């Protein structure tokens, strides 16, 4: 039966392949789930202007770039969204597959917040506190690395309340988790001089120590659904949630964000980069497809117009933190000219 059915199915599919692969009149966008809400908002507005609405897939940054770099034929995506910059290794993979000429467009910032239910007293954390609360191994009094012994926030810092450490955050597959580990944990890690020096002597070990999240139940992987984390926070005032700024903004009556290094997460502090846990968001355009697939230039223009990505634009309403004016101008000019990017340093 296997042979018959599979053979028949394959025959059917083979017969239908040839026709649709030839031409495509919708833009294909793949990539980060963090950029997804912004990208879709632009796509929808772009679709109102007479073009077909682009198809936006939420595959995660890594998966999206892999698809984007898989070749330059029309069956590959035209644009990849990313919640981090393209890596050198990915750039090489792209080149190897014949994808030459990629335009990098930096679109703005996203803050990662540590939020709690409104019914709890607000936290005032430092990056060091976050590291001590959530890292897998922490240095003890003598400076030796030991498995994280801290059970309550008070163990971390006597100024904090005596409640159990309970942090709900994204799983390892998420770009938000990568950014959180890199910005918050590693930032706190570097406040220990011994660990900071490690970076020069053994970069790999430094990364392993500084970005490892504890696995003894204090950090709870709550899945990719940030709405779920918000609901859990409301039900449990002692828990802390980790997610993108836009969810804090939309649920301002239920949760509030913890101050980090004395700065509360809000639009201005993230835009000015005084709030320490924020990252840049990007999208990448395959220059070879411009002209082949209708509308790519216009889509990029829609995205980089001030009515979209400006501080007053509709993406700001969705939670995107705009770039400073000068950066926005140069980035938009760069995007318009489709200047291919150079190979990233690492």
């Amino acid at each position, binding site marked *: *039966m*296997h042979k*018959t*059915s599979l053979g*028949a*199915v*394959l025959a*059917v*599919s*083979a017969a*239908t*392949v040839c*026709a*649709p*692969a030839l031409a495509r009149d*919708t833009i*294909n966008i793949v990539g980060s*789930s963090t950029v*997804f*809400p912004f*990208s*879709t*908002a632009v*796509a*929808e*507005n772009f*679709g*109102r202007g*007479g073009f*077909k*609405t682009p*198809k*936006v*897939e*939420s*595959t995660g940054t890594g998966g999206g770039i892999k698809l984007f770099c898989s070749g330059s034929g029309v*069956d590959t995506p035209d644009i990849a969204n990313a919640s981090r910059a393209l890596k050198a290794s990915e750039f090489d993979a792209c080149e190897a597959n014949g994808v030459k000429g990629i335009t990098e467009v930096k679109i703005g910032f996203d803050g990662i917040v540590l939020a709690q239910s*409104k019914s709890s007293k607000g936290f005032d954390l430092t990056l060091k506190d976050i590291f001590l609360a959530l890292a897998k191994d922490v240095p003890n009094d003598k400076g030796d690395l030991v498995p994280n012994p801290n059970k309550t926030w008070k163990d971390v810092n006597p100024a904090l309340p005596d409640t159990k450490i309970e942090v709900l955050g994204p799983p390892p597959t998420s770009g938000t988790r990568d950014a959180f580990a890199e910005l918050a944990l590693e930032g706190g890690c570097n406040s220990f001089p011994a660990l900071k020096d490690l970076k020069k002597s053994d970069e790999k070990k430094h990364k392993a120590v500084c970005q490892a999240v504890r696995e003894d139940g204090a950090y709870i992987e709550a899945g*990719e*659904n*940030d*709405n779920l984390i918000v609901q859990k926070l409301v039900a449990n005032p002692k828990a802390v949630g980790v997610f993108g700024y*836009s*969810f804090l*903004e*939309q*649920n*301002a*009556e239920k949760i509030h964000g913890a101050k980090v290094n004395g700065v509360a997460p809000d639009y201005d502090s993230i835009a000015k980069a005084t709030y320490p846990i924020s990252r840049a968001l990007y999208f990448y355009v395959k220059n070879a497809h411009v002209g082949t697939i209708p509308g790519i230039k216009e889509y990029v223009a829609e995205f980089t117009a001030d009515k979209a990505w400006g501080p*007053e634009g*509709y993406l700001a309403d*969705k*939670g995107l933190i705009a770039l400073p004016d000068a950066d926005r101008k140069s980035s938009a000019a760069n995007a318009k000219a489709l200047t291919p990017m150079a190979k990233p340093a690492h």
Partner: protein
Amino acid sequence: MRTATQPPAPRRTIDIVNASLKRRYARERRFRFMGAAAVALGLLFVAILFADITLKGYTAFQQTYIEVPVYFDPATIDPAGSRDPQALAAADYLAVVKASMRRLFPDVTERSQLRELYALVSAGAPQQLQSMALRHPGVIGTTRDVWLIAAGDVDMLVKGHLDRALPEADRRIKDSSILLLDRLAADGRIEKRFNTGFFTNGTSREPELAGIAGALAGTFYTLVLTLLFSFPLGVGAALYLQEFAPKNRWTDLIEVNINNLAAVPSIVFGLLGLAVFINFFGVPRSTPLVGALVLGLMTLPVIIIASRAALQSVPPSIREAALGVGASPLQTQFHHVLPLAMPGIMTGAIIGMARALGESAPLLMIGMIAFIVDVPQGFTDSATVLPVQIYLWADSPERGFVERTSAAILVLLGFLVLMNLAAVLLRRRFERRW
């Protein structure tokens, strides 16, 4: 009363039975009670689930509208006066909406206040005016009272999902906006109406504009193809295995494999689909075609198993009688056995399709978890399906999507109930007992 001198009377069987009777009845009652309690508990959970989803979702079937006297200004819409549909389509209707809102509140002049005023109506309002002007060019130059779609946050406030008693900083909607809304409400310019857009629109990033038409169309195309792929193959395979194939080690192996396949997690079929259909055969991603190929493979074992059971329940006397009057084995099967087994086969197929209808995990791998606004028009247009739409909405930060998610779940549950009901009815109506 016995005394020690008398020999004990022999215990009769009926005494033993009588002695244990009470205990046995009690045990019976306990078991019945536990069975009933299990059913009741199950029903309770189902009721809670339904009640929760219904309570959260029913409000999505209504949508808040704001009545605005719109002056279709010919200077903005059709400066050339040509009434050319192309020019009418490209006109700046946002400016018309803004001007109409300003006219409604002449006292609002400050820039930030104006922004709030414009934000009361949805980003879809210009589309409403555009389609009006295109359909009836006569409205240009006149003033019409138009019910414009209210913005998502306004909709949430009117429906009571946003608490106006909270401090202003904690609310998505500002005090000054609420003041404007209260003035509109006092004039009778705010109304909740049946949300037809929910059934006719594709998805959107604005909850007030988002609808399930795209997902429904995608589901329809996908399921039609799934049925076309899996039903003939499944019934054919079952017929061969059950009636024609020799019983040997190979057919045993195949049987074990089919039973295994029925229990394989659906995501595995997605991976297979990605590797074989998309990467090897180049079937376009995100289309109902590739979705149906994957779901068809997934449904195949279910249909084969159900069909074999149905064929098995047809008594051998039917076959023998047919063969006896000179029918060929093929005629026996197609004229007599298969029609009698059909109700059972259909039931299996419907249940398999219902499973395919609710599936989203395998579609993740083949690119159907995507934001697709345009309603698909065919089997090779990009599309999503209902469960995927629910997943995407559940993940959206905007508050309005909470009720939309539940409403979409209600629609999906409705279809599932209908399909299962059809399966039960088919069985009731056509099944024959031998």
